């Protein structure tokens, strides 16, 4: 029960963060160039992600549980530590916070300057490809989390449901405010998701390696608490020795980073 609840929370939060980032790009091209091709791109992206989950989910479920937990736990650990590292660097002032308003403004200018060309059944190819890429690139991490969490907990439908609820909430909020969801505390959500991915990854990888946790499943809660405590401590420590002044978003983000 605890495992399923944590699975829902982890997938929901991860999907919310990525959906907010995708929404910013889709909103910018939709507002500046029209919604028809933007919606076609979003739908094509969602179908691609659903196909990835539909193909890889059942395939992973056939792998023996110990081997699955070892490999998937390791991948989740690498992913989770990446999210946590980035969230800590942002929270402590070493990396600029994700600014949805600034990204939206930049995307709006680029979209207005691009040419209108149609291909196949798509009226505006630029809008279609940008929306498609935004959904697939931002959604790929969520698809990975859905597949790994779902297969390890033997509950892919619950993971899919959590992702779908998150997308529905973000789309509804976006439609309501008709602007980037800049008030969503993305870094805090990423911090929480990073803690959960790292904790689940540690728990499953060790189980897959043949380690027996004291207290069995209850150990997961202790790991989450320990990782959260250590991550918060590292943030405070780094904040005390952080360089003064605001880090510039352009200079701090790695080149080519769409999500993050």
């Amino acid at each position, binding site marked *: 029960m605890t495992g399923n609840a944590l699975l829902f929370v982890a997938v929901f939060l991860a999907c919310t963060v990525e959906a907010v980032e995708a929404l910013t790009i889709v909103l910018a091209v939709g507002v500046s160039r029209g919604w028809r091709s933007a919606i076609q791109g979003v739908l094509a992206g969602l179908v691609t992600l659903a196909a990835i989950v539909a193909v890889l989910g059942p395939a992973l479920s056939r792998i023996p549980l110990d081997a699955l937990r070892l490999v998937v736990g390791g991948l989740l650990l690498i992913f989770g530590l990446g999210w946590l*590292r980035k969230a*800590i*660097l942002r929270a402590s002032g*070493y990396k600029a916070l994700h600014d949805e308003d600034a990204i939206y403004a930049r995307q709006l200018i680029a979209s207005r300057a691009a040419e209108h060309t149609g291909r196949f059944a798509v009226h505006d190819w630029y809008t279609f490809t940008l929306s498609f890429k935004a959904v697939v690139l931002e959604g790929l991490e969520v698809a990975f989390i859905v597949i790994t969490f779902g297969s390890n907990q033997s509950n892919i439908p619950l993971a899919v449901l959590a992702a779908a609820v998150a997308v529905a909430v973000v789309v509804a909020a976006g439609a309501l405010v008709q602007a980037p969801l800049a008030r969503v505390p993305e870094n805090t959500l990423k911090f929480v998701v990073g803690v959960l991915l790292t904790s689940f990854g540690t728990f499953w*990888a060790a189980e897959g390696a043949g380690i027996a946790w004291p207290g069995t499943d209850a150990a997961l809660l202790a790991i989450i608490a320990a990782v959260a405590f*250590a991550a918060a401590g*590292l943030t405070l420590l780094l904040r005390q020795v952080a360089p003064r002044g605001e880090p510039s978003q352009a200079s701090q983000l790695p080149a080519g980073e769409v999500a993050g």
Partner: protein
Amino acid sequence: MSRIAGWARGFASFWWDFIIGDDWTLAAGVILAISATVALAHHAIDAWWFLPLAVLTLLALSLTRAARAARKA
């Protein structure tokens, strides 16, 4: 040929960024730590504390390196 090579490079770079991310030493450290956990379990040593400790150490080291690099820049 160069177009295929460019495409392959782009493909490999996408997956590298996607899985490994900003710090490859974190990924390498995770693989080493899990391998050590497998070895410990294989020798009937139930070192459940090892992986969490290794993971938090890796995170602290990676953050220290990133902070040092940012201060130098």
